């Protein structure tokens, strides 16, 4: 059943010219419309057909010229089975704003199945694969050639348009008006020229999805189904395709978070960078592209972008349910928390942070950018700090040990930098070694450091293996010139005269019962010495001998 509009058109066609079909009427109307759009003054004031106004001279098949490729395939490119074989130019062409317009012949490859026919579907009804003729400046390594399948047009000199072409110039100004509806009109914009140099609607970028318009900083912008083209104030047309275009499109294009592209896509270490008004898109060596914009983008700019050492993004920014935002890069991440703002975590510190559970782990979220100090770097988190130095590696100090570490002066105190991560015993105690000491925590006695001679002794006797356990007190001085630290199962005593020695178990209990270092025995002058079933500790004023078989202790003077 035909619609009312179809019936009206049918009637007009019949009235217009006997024998005309609805299709021919519409086709004619379309050509007239194209003629009016492309060259209205010429068409209205000169005795010529609408076809001639659009397609120029010699558009009929019997006039012997070769058709344009876009008429044949929809793309202003050599079709499959043909190759760029030569070119000529028409000087002072309005199609190229007064410069030369170049016509590039696509000759059939030998063995291809192109057959001679007239083009159809538009006013460009020139010949396809008929003229056995070659201009010969391109692909001269190919000696065998078939007829000219079709021709491509460009305002770009062919020796630039196609690397296989030489600059030997041949001219035919009689073709200067030749055109087709699928080609751009007079003096197209540089973007349109570039677009058609890459095939036009049937080519690399596909059909247009929006009209060309003003872009950023005085540039122009046009979007297509498979890419965008833009110019910048610096001149030249730039293209975004592939994953960069996909990412840009996903980000909302020019009205999205990134805005218009503003500069030249630039090769950077490990990939490609494309600047936009409100951010950038980076394509990595693996071909994947990610954008950096918004709050992360602000931080990214503030730290110097790629100069920060963060590397290229390897993921899109992610907003977590707790309101944090993070974006990972090859060398770290930018992390934004509502309470602490945007900070950078990078390098080995970033890896350590991730290993320890990231923002949900023992360290929490970063509260400062990475600080560089003499000999080491550190990043502070809500529940600790990660330190990194060549000599000590990358170590985190967290929780109660971190509190004790800070109380002990941190990196500037007696302990120095951590040399290992926190160690937890099955019983829940924690310890961590540092350059010049150790930190120990138990639920019963809290955190206590060991440094200096005590740390050296503790390491020498292998700490907990010796039976001492963890320190349960800080360093105390029972009497002038002597100090003591108690442990879970004993104590260490020190004076300049006697050095540092320890006692554990029954001997320590007996020593304590006898008054300890301020008692009659005085300070120990040896560590426990085992001989057979007896363990002996000597003191300034005697010794204690434990017989392990009877569990009895004998004091000797």
């Amino acid at each position: 059943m035909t619609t009312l509009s179809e019936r009206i058109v049918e009637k007009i066609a019949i009235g217009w010219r006997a024998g005309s079909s609805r299709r021919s009427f519409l086709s004619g109307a379309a050509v007239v419309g194209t003629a009016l759009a492309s060259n209205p003054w010429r068409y209205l004031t000169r005795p010529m057909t609408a076809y001639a106004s659009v397609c120029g001279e010699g558009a009929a098949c019997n006039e012997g010229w070769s058709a344009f490729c876009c008429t044949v395939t929809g793309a202003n490119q050599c079709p499959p089975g043909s190759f760029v074989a030569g070119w000529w130019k028409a000087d002072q062409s309005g199609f190229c704003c007064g410069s030369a317009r170049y016509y590039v012949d696509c000759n059939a490859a030998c063995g291809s199945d192109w057959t001679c026919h007239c083009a159809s579907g538009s006013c460009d009804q020139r010949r396809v694969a008929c003229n056995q003729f070659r201009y010969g400046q391109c692909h001269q390594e190919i000696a065998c050639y078939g007829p000219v399948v079709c021709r491509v047009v460009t305002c770009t000199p062919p020796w630039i348009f196609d690397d296989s072409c030489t600059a030997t110039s041949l001219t035919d100004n009689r073709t200067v008006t030749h055109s087709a509806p699928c080609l751009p009109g007079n003096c197209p914009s540089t973007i349109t020229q570039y677009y058609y140099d890459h095939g036009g609607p049937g080519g690399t970028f596909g059909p247009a999805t929006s009209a060309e318009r003003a872009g950023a900083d005085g540039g122009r912008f046009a979007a297509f189904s498979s890419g965008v083209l833009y110019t910048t104030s610096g001149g030249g047309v730039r293209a975004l395709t592939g994953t960069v275009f996909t990412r840009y499109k996903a980000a909302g294009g020019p009205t999205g978070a990134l805005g218009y592209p503003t500069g030249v896509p630039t090769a950077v270490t490990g990939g490609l960078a494309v600047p936009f008004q409100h951010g950038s898109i980076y394509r990595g060596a693996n071909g994947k592209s990610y954008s950096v914009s918004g709050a992360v983008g602000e931080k990214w700019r503030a730290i110097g972008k790629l100069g920060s050492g963060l590397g290229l993004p390897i993921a899109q920014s992610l907003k977590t349910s707790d309101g944090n935002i993070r974006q990972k890069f090859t060398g770290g991440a930018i992390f934004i928390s509502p309470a602490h703002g945007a900070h950078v975590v990078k390098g080995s510190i970033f890896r350590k942070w991730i290993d320890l559970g990231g923002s949900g782990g023992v360290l929490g979220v970063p509260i400062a950018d990475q600080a560089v100090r003499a000999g080491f770097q550190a990043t502070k988190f809500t529940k600790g700090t990660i330190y990194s130095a060549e000599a000590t590696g990358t170590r985190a100090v967290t929780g109660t040990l971190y509190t004790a570490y800070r109380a002990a002066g941190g990196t500037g105190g007696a302990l120095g930098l951590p040399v290992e991560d926190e160690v937890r015993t099955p019983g829940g105690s924690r310890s961590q070694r540092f350059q010049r000491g150790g930190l120990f925590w138990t639920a019963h006695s809290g955190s206590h450091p060991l440094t200096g001679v005590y740390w050296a002794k503790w390491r020498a006797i292998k700490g907990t293996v010796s039976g001492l356990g963890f320190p349960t007190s800080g360093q105390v001085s029972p009497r002038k010139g002597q100090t003591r630290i108690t442990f879970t199962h004993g104590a260490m005593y020190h004076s300049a005269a006697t050095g540092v020695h320890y006692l554990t178990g029954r001997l320590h209990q007996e020593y304590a019962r006898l008054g300890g270092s301020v008692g009659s025995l005085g300070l120990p002058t040896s560590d426990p010495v085992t001989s057979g079933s007896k363990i002996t500790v000597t003191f300034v004023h005697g010794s204690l001998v434990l017989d392990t078989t009877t569990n009895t202790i004998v004091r000797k003077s």
Partner: protein
Amino acid sequence: MTTTLDGHGISIDLPAAWEGRLGVRRSPADTFDRETGVRPRSLAGALDRVAPAGNQGWSGERAQPLVHLANFPLPVDRGDFGSGAVDVMGSGGILVALIEYGAESAGTALFAEQGLPQPLPGQFDPNTLQRRISGQYGYQRFVTVAGRPFCVYIVIGSAAGLGPRTAQAREVLAGTRIESR
């Protein structure tokens, strides 16, 4: 009466009634009028845009010697492969175009054939034309002569008398001498 046309290391003995042009096409940039600007041509009537100076688009191209020989009056406005001339060629007309290419083309597969060809009537074809014109027959060969790459392109006005006219074209080619550069 034989007259000799020569230049650019090419010398051609023209038979009676044959005329010729031998030269290098001048770049439009050489004659660009910066005061009035170039009048761009495209679809007729599109003459409202004037090319900006310095944007002529000819930089880099290299014109090479070009020879047009014909047994009819050659028009002034000719394409390098004879368009314009073949349009006014009568049925008895013969056009011989000898087009040199850049030295970089010498030795390529396309120009592998050595020496000027001696075409035979059977080698002419109505489709071997830059632009098919009813009745005309064409012939095209890429050759290297004295180390210089050339395209030889011949158009004959009609099939009638193809043999004698091919012989005339052969005579012209036989009277062509090309020196090495």
